[in-house]
């Protein structure tokens, strides 16, 4: 069957592979960022390109007396870092970037990751010498501009969250979650309720939620999703008790649905003496439309790299600030940014903040990310709700176009993302969500998130974001529909995808069974 899918049909019409040599035999050069390249020789590792005596960087040398490291502490064998020239390095990383797909390359509807356009002005601003070359231990009078920016960002985030106070320290959403749970612990202790150990987490939650609960020393109490895709209120009612420390909720949920019972959920938890934590992973749906604080949440984390468009960097850096109620403010991590009566800014440390949970990162925040997010928010201003409106509009358009070809587990309007199921294709044609995802690559698109949330079999979680045009959405929908047809007419073509990427489907099981996690040098 594989052979029946002739090579001419493997790559969809309109996406012609880049012709000519892709990579020279020595592993350098090759095709630029063509969306569809087709398999070819790989890029040699830097270590394989290394030649003794070659180097890129030069350093100043000063006519100074040499200082020796004491015997026993001196490096015995040099690290085998690559020995390469600067031109080698430029070509190497250019070749690697050509083998990678970003938002800049094309449509990247990775659900729950909010892969929107990253405005370039943020890069320019973060690189201003006053920011880029500012030492984190600089005295207060020498960093007022940075603190002012952070303060302004805090004010913006508090307004979007509908809460009272903000910390910008967490480096990512998951660190925000962990810090949020530390705040829960500190707050409960201050209330004399230290015995509360349970955190209620819906079954649709991101895996980070239960992992953070465990790292914060609490126990997970899972609750199920009801037939409409909301958290099962009855189950929460049955589970809340004097042991409840908190509820962690993502709203809209990872099903892309706004929880219609959210007011009841937060009321139940508050009535039982617990706190409510809002996972802001999906905040892109509701900025300026509905505020977590108004839903009854005490703590909110933002993912600045998602909602406020800072580049994801191939996995990071991100930023996961928290907004909290006034009750939780005294527990925020040090240093705490404050504005003094004279309008200047200061950082309060342990001595001034005796109730603080402590410090959670080396320095006050992932500042360069904060600059970019601040710029994004100021570019939008009060009209930010239109960002969320466009995100929700785009997602519902894809839902409308795809709902007949794929199964829709919950028949409702979606928010900023939609979750479909490839269960019908799997059952009827043996084509899985993974196969659909891989085949999308042949059409030039990054796949959606797959197999998540766990409550939907063969899940395809699609988040288009607000920055995509109708033409792009149509091209993607056309590809999804074409793949559904291919699943009927030529399932093996889909099952053996991708065909047009620089490598074919990779053997992930082998990488687990025989882990090779670093280059092995020849003896």
């Amino acid at each position, binding site marked *: 069957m594989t052979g029946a899918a002739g090579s001419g049909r493997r790559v969809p019409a309109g996406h012609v592979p880049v012709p000519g040599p892709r990579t020279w035999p020595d592993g350098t050069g090759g095709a630029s960022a063509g969306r569809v390249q087709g398999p070819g020789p790989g890029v040699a590792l*830097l270590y394989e390109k290394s030649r003794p005596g070659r*180097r890129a960087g030069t350093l100043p040398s000063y006519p*100074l*007396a040499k200082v020796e*490291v004491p015997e026993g*502490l001196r*490096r015995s064998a*040099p*690290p085998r870092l690559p020995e390469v020239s600067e031109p080698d*390095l430029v070509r190497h990383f*250019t070749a*690697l*970037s*050509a*083998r*990678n*797909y*970003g*938002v800049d390359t094309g449509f990247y509807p990775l659900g729950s990751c909010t892969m929107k356009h990253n405005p370039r002005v943020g890069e320019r*601003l973060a690189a201003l010498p*006053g920011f*880029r070359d*500012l*030492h984190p*231990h*600089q005295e207060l009078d*020498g960093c007022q*501009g940075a603190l002012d920016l952070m303060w302004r960002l805090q004010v913006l985030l508090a307004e979007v969250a509908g809460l009272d106070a903000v910390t910008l320290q967490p480096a990512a959403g998951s660190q925000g979650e962990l810090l949020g749970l530390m705040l829960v612990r500190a707050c409960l202790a201050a209330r004399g309720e230290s015995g509360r150990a349970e955190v209620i987490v819906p079954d649709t939650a991101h*895996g980070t939620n239960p992992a953070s609960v465990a*790292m914060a020393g609490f126990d997970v109490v899972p609750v199920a999703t009801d037939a409409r895709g909301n958290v099962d209120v009855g189950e929460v009612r049955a589970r809340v008790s004097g042991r409840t420390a908190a509820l962690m909720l993502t709203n809209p949920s990872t099903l892309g649905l*706004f929880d219609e019972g959210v007011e009841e959920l937060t009321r139940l938890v508050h009535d039982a003496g617990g706190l409510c934590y809002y996972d802001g992973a999906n905040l892109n749906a509701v*900025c300026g*439309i*509905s505020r977590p604080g*108004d839903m009854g949440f005490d703590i909110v984390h933002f993912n600045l790299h998602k909602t406020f468009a800072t580049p994801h960097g191939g*996995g990071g850096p*991100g930023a*996961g600030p928290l907004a909290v109620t006034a009750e939780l403010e005294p527990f925020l991590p040090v240093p705490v940014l404050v504005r003094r009566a004279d309008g200047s800014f200061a950082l309060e440390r342990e001595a001034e903040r005796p109730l603080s949970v*402590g410090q*959670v990162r*080396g*320095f*006050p*925040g*992932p500042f360069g*990310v904060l600059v970019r997010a601040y710029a994004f928010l*100021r*570019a939008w201003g009060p*009209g930010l709700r*239109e960002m969320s409106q466009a995100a929700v509009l785009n997602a*519902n358009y894809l839902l409308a176009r795809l709902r007949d070809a794929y199964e829709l587990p919950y028949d409702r309007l979606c928010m900023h993302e939609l979750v479909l199921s490839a269960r019908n294709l799997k059952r009827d044609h043996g084509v899985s969500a993974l196969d659909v*995802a891989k085949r999308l690559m042949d059409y030039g698109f990054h796949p959606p998130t797959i197999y998540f949330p766990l409550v939907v079999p063969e899940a395809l979680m699609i988040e288009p974001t607000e920055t995509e045009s109708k033409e792009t959405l149509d091209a993607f929908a056309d590809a999804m529909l074409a793949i559904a047809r291919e699943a009927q007419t030529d399932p093996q073509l889909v099952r053996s995808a991708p065909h047009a990427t620089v*490598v*074919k*489907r*990779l*053997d992930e099981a082998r990488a687990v069974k025989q882990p090779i*996690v*670093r*280059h092995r040098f020849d003896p």
Partner: protein
Amino acid sequence: MGAQRPYLALTPDDVAGLLGTIGVGSVDELFRDVPEGVRLRRPLAVEPALAEQELVAHVSALAARNAHVGAELSFLGAGAYDHYVPALVDSVLARGELLTAYTPYQPELSQGILQAIFEYQTAICELTGMDVANASGYDGATVAADACYLARHATGRTRIVVAQTVAPQVRRVVRTYAVGFGMEVVEVPHRDGVTDPGDFAAACEGAACAIFQQPGFFGCLEPAPELAAAAAATGALAVAHVDPLSLGVLEAPGAYGCHVAIGDGQGVGNPLSYGGPHFGFLAAREELLRRLPGRIAGETVDADGRRGFVLTLQTREQHIRREKATSNITTNQTLCAIAGLVYLAWLGPQGLRELGETCLALGGYARERLGLPLCFEQPTFKELAVRLRRPAEEVVARARAAGVHPGYPLGRDYEGMDDALLVAVTERRTPAEIDRLADVLAEAGA
């Protein structure tokens, strides 16, 4: 709604078309599942939108109010360092295919990032002399907490031993995290700026892990091999927190028996940026591979037998293992780690050694030229703790008035050290600049 809004592509006609296909009359109708009681019925109370050139003017004005290291001659260190970042790093990081990608869940479209991570892991292993490394943590402080969580599960023990010569910010972060881990923290005081192996060994009895820093926070070289041996003898994991740029001249932790090596990647191709973002690294012995937190890239083959890279051992991670995961980390610091890789490749082994030698020589010159008594008579790397004749805070203020930031007042973190200043000398400080520091300190009555 339309294209006049920043970064949107939908025209008014598009909006109408999309709504028609969806079958609703208005955008507001799309939000009908949002209960009335939680809707915001007013515009966000924030300042008006700025056009791009207004934004640049506004933010540039904020940046101009900061005394950055190009405006004020700086000898600040204490955990963040003014090392040179080559132009090559900026150039690689500007590649949109890397900058705007996310975690490489789909390896066939992410070979560039995955190979770069694999090369980064190799570089970290080579630097530290360890067998395996993850794809990065947030910073040098949080990876110390990660190491403690790893040690709790690897040993079943709950005590963390930390030398007081470990950077204060790292110790504070470990203390904060330890509460949730159900672990207690014991600190080992220093003797004359360094940790005594006997003191360390006594504290390590029954501990899960023991963390020391090389060079220590005061810049002094710790008896690292003896500290590692003291920890290992008690069954605790020996954790070395190392300055990666010292490892061209200082011995690799793997060579003296450490189980885990961690550190901060800021100086490695990442600018100061007021403390972030940069990266933390975590490397370990082979037997700890399946307990490592965070992403790990691994080598495999594709359907045609071609070499390729994937995220591997994912059953350690939160998206699979949930509350049983080795960590909650998801978004990490990949781009900053790639900056580290580019920088290390730019430097090469010889450059790394020269960098270390230059820092040592400049440190020696500063020692002699400043002519101030040392807090501790020890060999040092990159940083020097000196005693002043008046409070360090006062000297800092006077020196800054003359355009020089002379260093970090140690009294902020250590009792009885109000007259002590920590002076950092990276390869970016010239002998002439050290001369100027000496003059300014003398004028400040130091």
